[in-house]
């Protein structure tokens, strides 16, 4: 891996990522989406984020893809706190504390 390789990656990944982010908000602008599209866009966060992390929770890379009880339990705790109490702070703190506690207890 040369310095040029690194710089090419930085510049083109940066540019590409910006264009993805800018795509709709920059180019569509003021035009209104039809109602059916709005109804779908409402679910973007819950459609993307759970799927993105599901494999990371079930098959964590840190354990070589082995399902890990400490991670499963702490994910469940974060999910319960987040959904029942609607608390972002609680989910983050509760999840991380549970993770460390479980890693300590389960070794």
């Amino acid at each position, binding site marked *: 891996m040369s310095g040029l390789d690194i710089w090419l990656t930085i510049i083109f*990944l940066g540019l590409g990522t910006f264009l993805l982010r*800018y*795509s709709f908000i920059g180019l*569509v602008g003021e035009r209104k989406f039809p109602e059916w599209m709005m109804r*779908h866009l409402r*679910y973007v*966060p819950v459609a993307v984020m759970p799927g*993105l992390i599901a494999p990371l929770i*079930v098959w964590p890379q840190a354990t070589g893809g082995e399902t890990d009880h400490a991670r499963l339990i702490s*994910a469940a705790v974060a999910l319960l706190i987040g959904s029942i109490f609607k608390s972002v702070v609680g989910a983050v703190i509760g999840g991380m504390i549970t993770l460390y506690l479980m890693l300590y207890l389960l070794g």
Partner: protein
Amino acid sequence: MLSRICNIVADMSRTRSVFWQGLRAGAPFILVISPFGMLFGVVAIEAGFDLIQTMAMTALVIAGAAQFASVQMLVDGTPVFVAILTGVAVNLRMVMYSASLTPHLGNALPWQKVLISYFMVDQSYGVAFAKYEREPDMMLNEKIAYFFGCISIIAPFWYGFTLVGGLVGSAIPPEYALDFAIPITFIALVGPSLRSLPHLSAASVSVIVALALSWMPYNLWLMVAAVLAMITGAQVEKMLGARK
């Protein structure tokens, strides 16, 4: 005249308080952004990046998961264009973020839209979008202020802790389980919205499809899962609405 000035001042202080609301809403994510940024700094240096390259990547790309993916591919000796495309593929979800923010922020000024795009990360997007859905009566300038409030507390910690990681530069023991900061973040972003049936259905489909298709290359599994989950959410919403 006087009442007009009063209106402008009232408007400004309202916008300012919305900015602070956004900042407070973004603050919890410091707890997960910091270890994640630090981890990236360490990984990049270990991969052979110098400090300037590490910081340039963190500042220009500002998308942790894609940065990790590309660096890993370079380390593995993958051709550069494949490393770039892989990172871009990991970020394809940003197109959906951009589309769903458009009804809310599409009328912002051009320079604001450039900045919003640059700062469109999972946390700022997730927090702001949830707020816009909760409070549909927000004005455009309030929505913009909220978004910038949120990112203004997150971005400095992302840059700063990447720098710390790059300077420390040695492996963080796996016992610290920093890998799990990201799953916890996303759970925290999505959890509060899971109390409506359409949202819960969409999230469930997303998880099931993602796990079932995780053998697919280039993050295609995520795109398929996301599209099917969106359709699910919209259909369930329609069915519930029709029953009323």
